[in-house]
């Protein structure tokens, strides 16, 4: 098995040209903690960093000494050295509202903000969170207040949603459906339907039957109001996309040494390459190691059996069993990792051993940071 190159995260966060680090990966692999730990480490190595998280885990806020994270970057106290650290949690509805308020006159803004479709779109569309994360990222970058932004991606069902959602939202808002729905509003009534072929009559009828007249009306109002505000939503989505492709962005894929997480990491690495997005490498989190790896699992089991059959040294045999289990787990994790490495031999990898304690404070985050940077 070829050894993968080491992912030197210190080199990445120390490089003044690195302006954005995106931590991505499937749910439950420790993305948010990784992002926070990298942010703290960067700050303590002299950067002016901000961590943008989308995970509403209160524990993480507390670990940074903040009672609650909100949509505004808050300073994190207790950072050692010259640098500084801010942290914020994305409030997607607030962010969306702000865009509307910034781009529409008050009357139009009110129309949009109170529309039931807008409320649904802004608070629960699975892609809105991703899109607003990108939007916030763009805002932070343009403000130029920090020289390093570290962002973790939303806990979507698949890591790929992060890349697809803005495009999907853009497609919807610029799409055929919108144009069809807007027609009656634009042309002043049903007469516009005649412009279309017979197929459209079916569609309009079906929509009314399916949604009810009120829903259709709400939808039309929503669409025309939003369209007037945005002009080209897709152009905006493209802009955020280019920001991510630019040099100065580094994608860090986070995974745990489990089959699904590693598979997801593989897809993500391939996808990043397709989209020409700059991949820094893979962080394998919560790796189980043994301080007693000189004793193999097989020998350990054999010795435990031997002791048990003689009825001697109960404690030792229990310890040996435990150790064998640990070695077996480590071996399985290594196999999962090897699947990834053999498919992507040039991708740099950093491993973080599983910790016996959860992270509760800056000290804990610092420890994770140390582990991330240890070869």
């Amino acid at each position, binding site marked *: 098995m070829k050894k993968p190159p080491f992912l030197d995260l210190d080199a990445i966060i120390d490089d003044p040209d690195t302006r954005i680090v995106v931590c991505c990966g499937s*749910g*439950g*692999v420790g993305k948010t903690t990784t992002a926070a730990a990298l942010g703290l480490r960067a700050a303590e190595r002299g950067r002016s960093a901000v961590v943008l998280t989308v995970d509403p*885990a209160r*524990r993480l806020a507390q670990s940074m000494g903040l009672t609650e994270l909100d949509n505004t970057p808050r300073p994190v106290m207790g950072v050692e050295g010259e640098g500084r650290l801010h942290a914020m949690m994305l409030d997607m509805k607030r962010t969306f509202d702000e865009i509307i308020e910034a781009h529409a006159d008050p009357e139009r803004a009110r129309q949009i903000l109170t529309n*039931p*479709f807008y409320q*649904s779109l802004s608070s*629960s*569309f699975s*892609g809105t969170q991703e899109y607003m994360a990108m939007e916030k990222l763009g805002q932070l970058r343009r403000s130029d207040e920090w020289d390093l932004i570290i962002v973790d991606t939303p*806990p979507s*069902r698949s890591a790929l949603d992060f890349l697809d959602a803005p495009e999907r939202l853009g*497609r*919807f808002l610029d799409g*055929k*459906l919108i144009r*069809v729905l807007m027609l009656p509003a634009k042309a002043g009534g049903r007469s516009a339907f005649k412009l279309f072929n017979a197929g459209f009559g*079916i*569609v309009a009828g*079906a*929509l009314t*039957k*399916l*949604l*009810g007249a*009120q*829903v259709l009306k*709400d939808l039309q109002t929503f669409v025309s109001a939003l369209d007037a505000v945005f002009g080209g939503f897709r152009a905006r989505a493209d802009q955020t996309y280019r920001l991510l492709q630019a040099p100065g962005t580094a994608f860090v894929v986070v995974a*745990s040494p*489990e*089959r*699904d997480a590693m598979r997801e990491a593989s897809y993500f690495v391939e996808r990043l390459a397709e989209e020409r997005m700059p991949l820094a490498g893979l962080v394998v989190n919560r790796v189980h190691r*043994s*301080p*007693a790896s*000189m*004793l193999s699992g097989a*020998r350990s089991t054999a*010795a435990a059996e*031997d*002791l048990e059959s*003689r009825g*001697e*040294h109960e*404690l*030792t*045999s*229990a*310890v040996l069993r*435990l*150790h064998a*289990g640990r070695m*077996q*787990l480590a071996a*399985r994790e290594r196999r*999962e990792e090897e699947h990834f490495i053999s498919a992507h031999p040039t991708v740099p990898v950093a491993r973080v051993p599983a910790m*016996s*304690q*959860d992270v509760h404070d800056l000290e804990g985050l610092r420890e994770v940071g140390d582990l991330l940077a240890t070869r």
Partner: protein
Amino acid sequence: MRARDTDWDGVRLHVVTGKGGTGKTTVAAALALALAAGGRKVLLVEVEGRQGISRVFDLPPLPYEERKIAVAPGGGDVYALAVDAEEAMLEYLEMFYGMRRAGRALSKIGIVDFATTIAPGFRDVLVTGKTSEAVRRKGKDGKRVYDAVVLDAPPTGRIARFLNVTNEVAGLARVGPIKNHADLVNGVVSSPETAVHFVTLLEEMPVQETLDGLRELRAAGLPPGGIFVNMVRESLLPASVLEAAAEDRLDPTELVLGLKAAGLTDGGSGAVAVAEALTEEIAEHARRTELERHERRALDKAARPRYDLPLLADGVDLSGLYELAESIRTQGAA
């Protein structure tokens, strides 16, 4: 079918949720096998388009079609269905409105895309609607087609909202066919025939999310089920040893003797080095165990039936799945 004496007799819809990484799909699959054991017919449904079921059963990707995927111990069949929201919507249009052609036309201009991705309430109504239909479906003999349906549901953070469909669409559709459909679904998911189970690990965040999720369920009037504690590593060490190890007070002398007795000396001084390394390993293990005990106490507060599922050292494969199913059965969850 003779009723078994289990904790969930009378429940026909088992909704399984959990934080990402807790093994939700695996537990849902094992539960389906356990419920099917002894000649019953169970449908396992997934709704997130991840093809998680085909992965745990080591099968090619599942189509939008109910098909038999496994045979349970003692006879009994597990069927699987990967619900695709778009297909469900077309099916729904055809079934209730006879709108086949219009459905395709709607699909072309993106309304289906809209309903299934932009308006999440619609999407959830569609997939829970499909699931509810399977729960209620009756055969020619007037009996239910499936003895039980297991739903591999979205993660804990989204579960109350996902199931509380009436509420979700209320903002969008106050009257009309979608509202009616949502009410129908609600009748199924909030009935005593449904139980929402949580999968967790003995770690702080998944436990916290489980407790939060249970609270949200109660607030929404949805029926809570049991808690499946996944990937439990049994400790073989006596409490006194663990306690000493957690405080780094464990004396490796006894281990050195034991290792020597087992012939693990590795040339003279080897036993001491190994014993010290093992002592360190046990200390880590003991601290972890202590933390786990703490999380168990936190789970006690939920006062829900609890089931421990062992960590599968070789990962989840088909035989591991049957092992988990057996464990679920012996603990009375199915």
